[in-house]
């Protein structure tokens, strides 16, 4: 008995010594950890500032080149903001009325959203609130595949499939038309709307569903009266993101919408969007660095302002309608 105690005492003193040695080494390791922490911290700051730098330089280039555009004699701000005549390539009778391009963009975006928003929201409601788990597990990956198709594929799908179909339905459709491009952009945006709106619906706590059902509400009551209002901010964000995407979409409109800027609301007509014009310019239709070349930057800057204001609107809406559930 005594020997056991003595033995354990002896071993505990050696263990104490060992532990204090290890602990003092641990303190040295702490210094290394601190240095590591500082290195990581600096690296993170650098990455943060790098993204800031990129943003600032892109905006800087856009702004200076846009100012250069407005310094040309043949360009006036009143023409740019006050006209719908966009004819930069017409030699002597050039006109730079941005509305000719904005109207094309709005027409395509309008058609796309009229297709994608209702369909996306209804599909999201189905997936989130009604679909059995098996159906959901099947449909969600399909939607993700749809979102992963390169937009150029949508572009020639519009040109080769949608347009002939539209022409078969109705003879008045031009080979290049706003409707075909708009529908393709709509198909492109549909998975975005659907998946973001579904996330918003899913983030509504189950307790609210149970609450509505527990009061004798049907599934439809619960969805329309409780879940949809609670998810509103997320759904509106999804909508705005889809709008921003449609406005910025390039390949589809470059391929299917045509290259004739005009202020029209007829979806059968050939039009040109802001992005479509930029592709045309940057793609090398003009080789001199004249007014028409720099007009590209003015268009890009306008487009940037439009998407920026949409993003800011999105933030305001999100803050305004945000619900806290707890």
């Amino acid at each position, binding site marked *: 008995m005594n020997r056991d105690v003595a033995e354990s005492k002896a071993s505990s003193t050696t263990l104490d010594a060992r532990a204090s040695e290890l602990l003092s080494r641990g303190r040295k390791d702490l210094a290394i950890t601190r240095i590591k922490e500082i290195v990581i911290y600096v690296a993170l700051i650098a990455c943060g500032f790098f993204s800031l730098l990129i943003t600032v330089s892109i905006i800087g280039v856009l702004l200076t080149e846009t100012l250069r555009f407005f310094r040309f004699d043949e360009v006036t701000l009143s023409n740019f903001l006050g006209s719908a005549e966009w004819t930069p390539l017409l030699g002597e009778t050039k006109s730079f009325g941005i509305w000719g391009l904005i109207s094309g963009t709005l027409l395509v975006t309008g058609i796309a959203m009229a297709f994608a928003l209702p369909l996306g929201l209804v599909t999201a409601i189905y997936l989130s609130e009604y679909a059995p*788990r098996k159906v959901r597990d099947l449909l969600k990956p399909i939607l993700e595949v749809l979102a992963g198709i390169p937009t150029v594929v949508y572009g020639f799908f519009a040109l080769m499939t949608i347009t002939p179909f539209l022409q078969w339905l109705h003879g008045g459709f031009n080979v290049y038309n706003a409707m075909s491009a708009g529908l393709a952009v709509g198909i492109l945006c549909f998975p975005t709307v659907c998946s973001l709106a579904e996330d918003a619906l899913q983030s509504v*706590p*189950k*307790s*609210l*569903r*149970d*609450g*509505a*059902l*527990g*009061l*004798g*509400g*049907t599934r439809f*009551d619960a969805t329309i*009266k*409780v879940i949809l*209002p*609670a998810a509103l901010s997320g759904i509106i964000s999804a909508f705005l993101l889809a709008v921003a995407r449609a406005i910025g979409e390039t390949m589809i409109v470059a391929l299917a919408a045509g290259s004739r800027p005009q202020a029209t609301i007829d979806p059968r007509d050939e039009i040109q969007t802001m992005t479509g014009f930029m592709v045309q310019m940057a793609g090398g239709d003009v080789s001199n660095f004249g007014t028409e070349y720099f007009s590209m930057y003015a268009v890009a800057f306008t487009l940037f302002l439009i998407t920026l204001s949409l993003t800011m609107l999105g933030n305001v809406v999100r803050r305004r309608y945000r*619900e*806290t*559930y*707890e």
Partner: protein
Amino acid sequence: MTTKTLETKPKRIMNQVAPTPSAENDSTDALDSTQYAIEAEKLNGWYGDFQALHEISLKIPKNQVTAFIGPSGCGKSTLLRWFNRMNDTIFSARASGDLRLGDIDLLAPSTDVVDLRRRVGIVFQKANPFPKSIFENVAFGPRLHMQLNKSELSDLVEWSLRKAAVWKEVKDRLNAPALGLSGGQQQRLCIARAIATGPEVLLMDEPCSALDPASTLAIEDLMDELRDQYTIVIVTHNMQQASRCSDKTAFFFEGRVVEFDTTETIFTKPSSQKTEDYVRGRFG
């Protein structure tokens, strides 16, 4: 408006929906002719392959407070959620046996769960007010089930809030968001919301577990007030609460009812050793 007039008026409104036995036909007579609100006979319940309820047989007396006690996972909440078919929202949940509310077969697929849940209200463990105004929360059920004009609706809302002992605190801010209320107020609001549909039975699933002692006391007083008009079933982990405010107590263990008797018997001279150990705090 005085309390007196309100006490009678909304009741009349609700009678259109849940008529009193004298004015009603035989479908509710069957319920009223017995002294039990809910009767379970050899009820078994599963989540997937896991059997959560074994051969449950018990009768919930009308217009009394029945407490379900037992350690976590013993099936008491599961049973409660079968009483108004809230388990329908859980994909893998199923049950067999006999479960009745009066002459309604609660397990039949054909049972109208919408009407059932109006008659058997539920209050959840965590207060779950909708992200709407206080008024709209209480008006939610009535708007679903009744055709009321504006003044009838606001009378019914006031009556429900008074019944749930939260009127004084919210009467000046009925249009304020319900989520701005304290936890205890939110839970009483949820009780008001459940009452507003005119239920016969009120299920409470650990309604006080997230509340401070003062709010807990307020809700216990409230149950005492409500037992005249409602059959109340409360799941609780709080032994004092069960002994304070229930008439009968069922002790659950591992999916079975070990003992079901008057609360006094359960807490003073239970017949099962297991029950005694649990209520004395020796396990669970």
